[in-house]
């Protein structure tokens, strides 16, 4: 998003072209990481020496600097000028602008935006964009149908000085001193400087009248740390006179990323807000994507990380937002370590087993408000300090997760996976099957009891969702999607669902506790608890049965584990959760059962080359690009969303390909770990970026998953073939150091073998079910 802004704003006659970021000793290599990131994006940047900093900006104190990141192509614009330019330009194209007009509410009829009620009358419209900034939340709540826009304001201060005796040149670079938490630029011969403090002041929690923003109070005591940081970085400013301290509130979101896109449930109601203080730099790109979204129905790149549908009503509590933005705002200028979990707004959604697991040493992460165990600290071990996990190197949980993985491989582990999104689709006739056949790439017309892994694709063949669908009965299906799909998947299905009273979609996420029993002994545990043989002969893979576990009856047992390991998922009505868990744990004792967390699951999944929606897959990735052709019903004549695009791609070939890279010569103990976003080089040329990575305890190597997207010499995308991939020498760049890697298209246990087994299973189960 950021990329497009300078380009667009360039046309609006912008002036500046330099930006320098500063880092002192500890953070130097973070600069390198950033630099690499810029190269991937195609932004020109370079690391410069303190001496060069002094040359570019003579006011800067360089004594404690190790180096700086220099972005020669960056620019500075004045917001009012940009606004004016845009207003003039759009007015020339027939846009009408009403000033001093307040929106009372947005009129929604039958799930569509129809008009906007203002204090000066109503305006009919097909599309409405809520870009009310600070007030977007209140505006969203004002209508009859409430729209959740999770953002919250914080006071933001910046200082204006009078011109220096030797005026600061307009073309002097913008400085960002992350350690001092400040930014600085020239302003009318003086300096404009602000920052993102450690102790933000949230504001307007109760909602306020728009007019109050005009007379916000300055707070010098609050600004003191930033003033001191400024004078430390630029001691020459000490004698400079103060013009004004401006208090200009900014809005922040729960995850530091902006909110854009169409709101779930209301067609034509778009949002663009919560810019986290970088509104101007994102404006160009965000505007472009939103315009595409409105015009074509989707933006021209994957913007899932910014999509408002990643949030739901559950993030709309004012208390939650107030607490979370207090944590988010300081992070803007902090080192963002991998797998960092927010500490505020926690323990909102929990499994019924939460306390039980917590007592056994669970350490938690949060996804979509749901607490999930990362790993379990063994009894007797000291609690790990929060700060110790803040590293780019080998983390302190390495051995703990290793032990959990080992137990998954050799015995049996239980992982609470209740956070997953669960829908039930039922119909009187075959409407449910019809709908799913249209939405899903894979064939859903399978015998009752079968589980189908499938993508839900868009017209372009890209993944809107990647889910497992269980055929519970002839006309009812159980859909399991990733946790953060709760809002997105719901609105995707609803959008394509005919309004048929006999077709019913229900969100049952809260009704079931999901336990994942992973490991070779899982079947022993379950058969002891149910008096049913659970061996693959009797309970083949990807199969679902309702059965009893302990005293509890009606437990949905599914032979899949989301990891490729043997085992079962148990979907347990929540009132039985504690009972089933207790039974499993006590019976499992003799099989060496233990709790495991998501980090173990992740390691297992990645070494098996399982892609995950939201991390590896997005709405621009097709099944052909990630080696999942076998999950597409090409052999059937059934039409489904994305079929044409996929058929075309099958003929033309893919221009990007999901691969698995196994790192070589990487010292787990001493080298910086890959996390995600590392550049991939083929024969010395940049060819792609990793999307996720994990240490494989089986291979004792790091495994990175990522996409290769080669280009022809003229810059156009080139077709990727298996041969192309197999013939290259690969390197992964981790914080400036390149590590050789082996690229693989298939996991170590071949997919073909699995497919074959599945075919056999199917025949067997066909035989069984009738």
């Amino acid at each position: 998003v950021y990329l497009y802004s300078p380009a667009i704003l360039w046309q609006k006659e912008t002036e500046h072209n330099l930006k320098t970021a500063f880092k002192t000793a500890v953070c130097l290599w973070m600069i390198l990481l950033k630099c690499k990131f810029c190269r991937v994006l195609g932004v020109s940047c370079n690391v410069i020496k303190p001496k060069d900093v002094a040359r570019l900006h003579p006011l800067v104190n360089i004594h404690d600097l190790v180096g700086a990141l220099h972005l020669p192509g960056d620019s500075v614009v004045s917001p009012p000028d940009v606004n004016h330019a845009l207003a003039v330009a759009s007015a020339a194209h027939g846009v009408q602008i009403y000033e001093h007009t307040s929106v009372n509410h947005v009129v929604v009829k039958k799930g569509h935006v129809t008009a906007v009620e203002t204090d000066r009358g109503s305006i009919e419209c097909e599309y409405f964009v809520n870009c009310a900034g600070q007030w977007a939340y209140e505006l969203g709540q004002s209508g009859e149908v409430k729209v959740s826009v999770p953002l919250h304001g914080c006071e933001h201060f910046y200082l204006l000085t009078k011109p220096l005796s030797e005026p600061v040149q307009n073309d002097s670079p913008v400085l960002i001193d992350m350690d001092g938490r400040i930014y600085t630029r020239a302003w009318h011969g003086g300096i404009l400087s602000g920052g993102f403090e450690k102790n933000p002041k949230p504001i307007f929690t109760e909602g306020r009248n728009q007019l109050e923003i005009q007379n916000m109070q300055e707070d010098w005591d609050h600004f003191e740390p930033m003033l001191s940081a400024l004078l430390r970085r630029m001691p020459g400013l000490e004698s400079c006179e103060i013009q004004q301290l401006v208090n200009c509130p900014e809005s922040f979101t729960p995850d530091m990323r902006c909110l854009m896109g169409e709101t779930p449930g209301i067609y034509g109601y778009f949002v663009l807000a919560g810019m986290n203080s970088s509104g101007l730099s994102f404006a160009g790109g965000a505007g472009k994507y939103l315009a595409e979204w409105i015009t074509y129905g989707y933006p021209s790149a994957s913007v899932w990380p910014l999509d408002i549908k990643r949030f739901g009503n559950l993030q709309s509590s004012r208390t939650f937002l107030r607490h979370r933005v207090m944590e988010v705002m300081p992070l803007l200028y902090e080192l963002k370590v991998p797998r960092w979990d927010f500490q505020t707004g926690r323990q909102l959604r929990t499994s019924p087993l939460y306390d039980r697991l917590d007592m056994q040493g669970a350490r938690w992460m949060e996804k979509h408000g749901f607490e999930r165990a990362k790993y379990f600290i063994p009894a007797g071990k000291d609690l790990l300090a929060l700060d110790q996990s803040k590293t780019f190197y080998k983390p302190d949980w390495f051995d703990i997760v290793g032990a959990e993985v080992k137990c998954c491989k050799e015995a049996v582990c239980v992982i609470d996976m209740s956070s997953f999104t669960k829908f039930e689709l039922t119909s009187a006739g075959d409407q449910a099957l019809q709908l799913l056949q249209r939405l899903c790439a894979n064939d859903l017309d399978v015998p009752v009891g079968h589980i189908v892994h499938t993508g839900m694709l868009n017209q372009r063949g890209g993944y809107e969702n990647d889910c497992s669908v269980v055929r519970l009965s002839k006309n009812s299906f159980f859909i399991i999607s990733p946790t953060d799909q709760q809002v997105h998947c719901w609105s995707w299905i609803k959008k394509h669902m005919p309004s048929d009273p006999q077709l019913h979609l229900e969100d049952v996420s809260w009704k079931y506790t999901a336990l994942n029993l992973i490991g070779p002994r899982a079947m022993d545990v379950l058969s002891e608890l149910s008096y049913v043989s659970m061996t693959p002969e009797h309970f083949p893979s990807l199969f679902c049965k309702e059965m009893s576990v302990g005293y509890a009856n009606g437990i949905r047992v599914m032979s899949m584990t989301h990891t490729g390991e043997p085992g079962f998922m148990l979907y347990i009505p929540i009132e039985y959760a504690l009972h089933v868990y207790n039974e499993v744990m006590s019976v499992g004792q003799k099989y060496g059962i233990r709790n495991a967390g998501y980090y173990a699951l992740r390691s297992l999944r990645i070494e098996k080359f399982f892609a995950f929606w939201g991390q590896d897959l997005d709405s621009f990735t097709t099944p052909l690009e990630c080696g999942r052709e076998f999950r597409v019903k090409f052999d059937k004549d059934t039409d489904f969303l994305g079929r044409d695009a996929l058929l075309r791609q099958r003929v033309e070939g893919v221009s990007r390909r999901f691969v698995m890279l196994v790192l070589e010569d990487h010292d787990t103990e001493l080298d910086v770990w890959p996390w995600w976003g590392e550049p991939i080089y083929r024969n010395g040329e940049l060819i792609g970026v990793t999307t996720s990575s994990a240490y494989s305890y089986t291979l004792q190597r790091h495994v990175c998953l990522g996409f290769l997207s080669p280009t022809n010499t003229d810059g156009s995308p080139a077709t990727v073939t298996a041969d192309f991939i197999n013939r290259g020498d690969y390197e992964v760049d981790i914080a400036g150091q390149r590590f050789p890697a082996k690229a693989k298209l298939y996991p170590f246990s071949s997919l073909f073998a699995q497919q074959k087994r599945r075919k056999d299973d199917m025949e067997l189960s066909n035989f069984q079910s009738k």
Partner: protein
Amino acid sequence: MAATSQVFMVIHGRRFGRILVPAMTCQNCSQSPRPCINATQPHSFKQRWQHQVRGYRTSPAWHSYYLTPPQVNSILKANEYNFKVPEFDGKNLCSVMGFDSNQLPANAPIEDRRSAATCLQTRGMLYGVFDGHAGCACAQALSERLFYYIAVSLLPHETLMDLENAVENGRPLHPILQWHKHPNDYFSKEASRLYFSSLRTYWQELLDLSVPGEQPDVAEALVSAFKRLDNDVSLEAQVGDPNAFLHYWVLRVAFSGATACVAHIDGNELHVANTGDGRAVLGVQEPDGSFSALTLTNDHNAQNESEVKRVRSEHPLSEAKTVVKQDRLLGLLMPFRAFGDVKFKWSIELQRRVLESGPDQLHENEHAKFIPPNYHTPPYLTAEPEVTRHRLRPQDRFLVLGSDGLWETLHRQEVVRIVGEHLTGVHQQQPVSVGGYKVTLGQMQGLLQERKARISSTFEDQNAATHLIRYAVGSNEFGMVDHERLSKMLSLPEELARMYRDDITIIIVQFNPHVIGGP
């Protein structure tokens, strides 16, 4: 010159020892008697002090005796106490939000006492600071007994009747007071029965005097309670007790003395009854946010002209020169009003008679045998308080009750500023604004950092009284807390501490602006 003399502001010789007679005893009252270090001839004070000062200067051990900030804090916070009036549903309907109190000993043991209680059968809260002299016995007795006398005086006829009937019939009593005590504030068990019977006699008399349906006047009740308790202290000593220990105890109470400064707050009505040189000062917030002091009491000492006049007028003209001498009553006692101190109240015959019949310990006591010079027309001393009534206004933010140990180190205006800024938080009440002035970034930074330093010392103390003591003991010539000074003042050896500072006791009552602003 030794650095010590610069660091310490030595309290003048005039100041140490508010009574220039040998102390009777000084012990942790209910334990076995032990002669106090102060029990020497009055005229040797100066000599002794000089000798000891010289002694510690040459001692190298003392030079390295620095306290770390946590050590300083643990000393300052040892006696701090805080009470918040409980809220219901986020609202507090009481005119008082709560109070902070603390005390710092200089005497060993401390001779100051403090009390705080809520009246349960009438409305209102009571706060008192008691400054003892010639031992702590009298102050201790006041801290246990005075509030009961006040509470009983405030009871209407009907309640007194219930009380008497309950005692008569052996029924359990409804509690009269809810005490808010620090664990170090103790009550003596041995004397409680004696105290109770005196109290019961008092309410029986009140029952005879009071008229059903009439509400006692607070000011009158306070005066009556003060006088009655002093009278009871005196009587108990004259009557004695079959129990030798108790007998000795009541004599110690009567022969030692104490001043009392008591506040009674009921809704918007504030009454302060003061006997002696304790002080009650109201912190008033001005419209500009600053704080000014409103003193609600008059000191009863030689600095108060009308008090000198009163004392002189009560005695024949021939005694005019001797009754107030060297700014002291009879040349001996600093406060002109006090509880106990029967040496200044009883006739010489009575004093002799009581001492002769008293327990053996008394005969060895220098203080008890000593008769003040020029003692012709007793009583010279009274416990009758001066009562001030004040109707609380929305701008009245807090009340500071303090023993003279506080007021002689800090000006009342300074006290109110420190407490006011602590309670409101410095930055809230006076935001910095550049306005139209020419201010450079460097100047602004200096100002802000100074403010920050002040706030951080505020945050160190949750308790406003502790914060005030920190300033009282540790502030330098610039009015800022100087850690070095604080550390030295607090690490003075027991026997020296009294030379440099007095016992300090502080109660700070915070008012509830939401309630006192109302009708």
